[in-house]
């Protein structure tokens, strides 16, 4: 009986919502659009040096994002020498593979990258729940059926977290941002050993 009680308590604790765990309080249930400004300017070429650590391997390359139109982005990854590794395209929520190296053409990998990149480039995710803690704001949203929280510190987007059952699965950290250009991005996965570092060139 005691064991059951402990289990129940543990269950309740572990099932606490992500905002509660982070000690954020719900501010409103307004419907509005979050603004992710980092890949939003169609006149710019966003070019980053990418360092990727996956399992025990690490490799690097050039990560390129271009906004072609509203809700339309192209995402390309090449080696430093210019060989194209993959070339993806998002039009609204439709994901298209223009090119991928056969060695990388694995469903699981593509699915991970699809969700990661969509969260990166989605400019105006829709939010229905907002939370706050001091000067920090946190907006809940859903992208491609996954649950996300957008963190704003002094009105600047500095973190996006994907959660599942109240637990952090993927964390996007943004730093060194000025004029809506972010100089460093780190995408950390907690359930798989995958870490992506992007440094603005």
């Amino acid at each position, binding site marked *: 009986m005691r064991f059951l009680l402990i289990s129940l308590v543990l269950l309740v604790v572990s099932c606490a919502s992500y905002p509660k765990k982070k000690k954020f309080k719900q501010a409103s249930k307004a419907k509005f659009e979050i603004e992710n400004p980092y890949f939003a300017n169609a006149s710019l070429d966003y070019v980053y*040096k990418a360092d990727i650590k996956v399992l025990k391997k690490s490799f*690097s390359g050039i990560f390129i994002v*271009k906004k072609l139109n509203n809700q339309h982005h192209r995402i390309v990854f090449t080696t*430093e020498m210019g060989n194209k590794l993959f070339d993806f395209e998002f039009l609204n929520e439709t994901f298209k593979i223009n090119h991928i190296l056969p060695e990388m053409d694995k469903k699981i990998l593509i699915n991970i990258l699809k969700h990661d990149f969509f969260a990166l480039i989605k400019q105006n995710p829709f939010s229905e729940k907002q939370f706050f803690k001091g000067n920090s704001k946190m907006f809940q949203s859903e992208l491609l059926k996954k649950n996300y929280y957008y963190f704003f510190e002094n009105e600047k987007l500095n973190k996006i977290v994907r959660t599942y059952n109240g637990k952090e699965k993927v964390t996007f950290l943004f730093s060194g941002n000025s004029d809506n250009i972010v100089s460093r991005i780190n995408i950390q996965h907690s359930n798989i050993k995958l870490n992506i570092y992007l440094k603005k060139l």
Partner: protein
Amino acid sequence: MSLLLLVLTINNTLAQTKMSISEAAALQVKVKSLAKTTSTITADFVQKKHLDFLSNDIESNGKLSFKSPNMVKWAYMKPFQYSVLFKDDMLYINNEGEKNNIDIGSNKLFKQLNKLISASITGDMFTTEEFNISYFNTKKGSVVYFSPLNEKFAKYIKEFHISFNNKSEVSAVKMIEPSNDYTLIQFSNRITNQNIPDAVFAH
């Protein structure tokens, strides 16, 4: 007036004319003999990655070191520090100080591609079993188009364009993808047959 325009257009197109068979043969002989007498090359390079959807080409630059027959080091200096060394069929990477030889570039295709890049440094890749080859004269020398015959390979690179200066040295290499996006590498300050310190090719 329109006739003048037409003439001008033709003149412009003629800046690159197809070589005669004997001219092409002469170029081959020159390039091959130059390659034979070249033991080392160092050069500065500028790389331009052209992707049609971008507003600007992505530019990087660095230094190339080549030691006959097949040791090549591409050292990028700007806008990132990165070098890749091809040596004894191995690929050694130094990514901003982090050394690595387990790389996606170590796959078969890239090895083959990089072998070709090595060959293209001297330009001696006139192997008709592997390529469909066309020769052109240009204002500054010549340019040779190599289209891979291997279908699998052609999926990655549609054509190599190797430009030679009047001394039959390679001045630029352009690798064109099936999508028509390309990588252009232009060489300058080329120095041949000067001793290159072993440290350059050490890992």
